[in-house]
């Protein structure tokens, strides 16, 4: 008895198996990442002046989030995975910013 529910079930299973992008779209994402890397490397050869550090930080964050969202499928997966990963990441950033600030402001000189 091939009912409508069976077809829905099959379609849902099929959709769940192929969540994410198509192979062609993955290649486009990789090309964008390659271009961003090329811009990063160009900061070594070209003087970006006061934009040097902000450019590098922005590019780093964009590349990081792109890989996590598209290649690691966080954008398409359950939000719980996103919370798990980013809570670890934010905890790490907060703890080590505090750690570095401690050394910067409270270390004994001399």
């Amino acid at each position, binding site marked *: 008895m091939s009912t409508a529910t069976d077809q829905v*079930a099959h379609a*849902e299973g099929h959709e769940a*198996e192929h969540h994410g992008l198509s*192979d062609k779209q993955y290649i486009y994402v990789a090309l964008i990442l390659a271009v961003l890397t090329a811009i990063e490397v160009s900061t070594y050869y070209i003087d970006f002046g006061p934009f040097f550090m902000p450019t590098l930080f922005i590019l780093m964050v964009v*590349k990081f989030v792109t890989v996590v969202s598209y290649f690691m499928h966080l954008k398409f997966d359950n939000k*719980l995975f996103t919370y798990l990963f980013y*809570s670890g990441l934010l905890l790490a950033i907060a703890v*080590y910013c505090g750690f570095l600030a401690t050394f910067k402001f409270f270390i004994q000189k001399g």
Partner: protein
Amino acid sequence: MAETAISHGHDAGHGMHTSTGLSNNKLGMWMFLGSECLLFGGLISTYMLYKGRVNAGPQPDQIFDIPFTSVSSFILLMSSLTMVLAVSAAQRKDERNMNLWLVITALLGATFVGGQVYEFTAFYREGLGFTTSLFGSSFYTLTGFHGVHVSVGIIMLMALVGMNRNKRIPGDRAEVVEMIGLYWHFVDIIWIVIFTLVYLIPS
């Protein structure tokens, strides 16, 4: 009956009968990766703290070979593409392409590790040993830990190819490939951070 059928369809996609409705393996892997952020966060901040402490031996900007490291970084970035194509092939049950992309990913990873070994050798010859300065210790510890993670990833990829050929992968094969893919992409994103903070930003 409809509920049963829809539930079956859902499980076919995620392969789990858990209280959260999510794969425990995947949940565990994301928790592990979140905790790995703390490990690498510690190593990166230690490096940031000590990169200017050079009492002996070369300074960071005297020995870093940016063009060489840029090529290595690009290779590792492209290995993320080949890994995601392997995951995509596994989800389509395209075994031939899955094995092909897994082997290519392992080869790209091996090229990256080879480049790192070459870089370490070159730095050592230029006078930067592990105990030469605090910069040297923190640099080798950070990039060495990352290199070990890449090497473990290569072993997992090759083991996966071998197990797949012998039909010994337990459970949902696409999910196993995805788990190893998550680990592989993680070492890539860590390198994105290391490449910027360690190599591109001068001391």
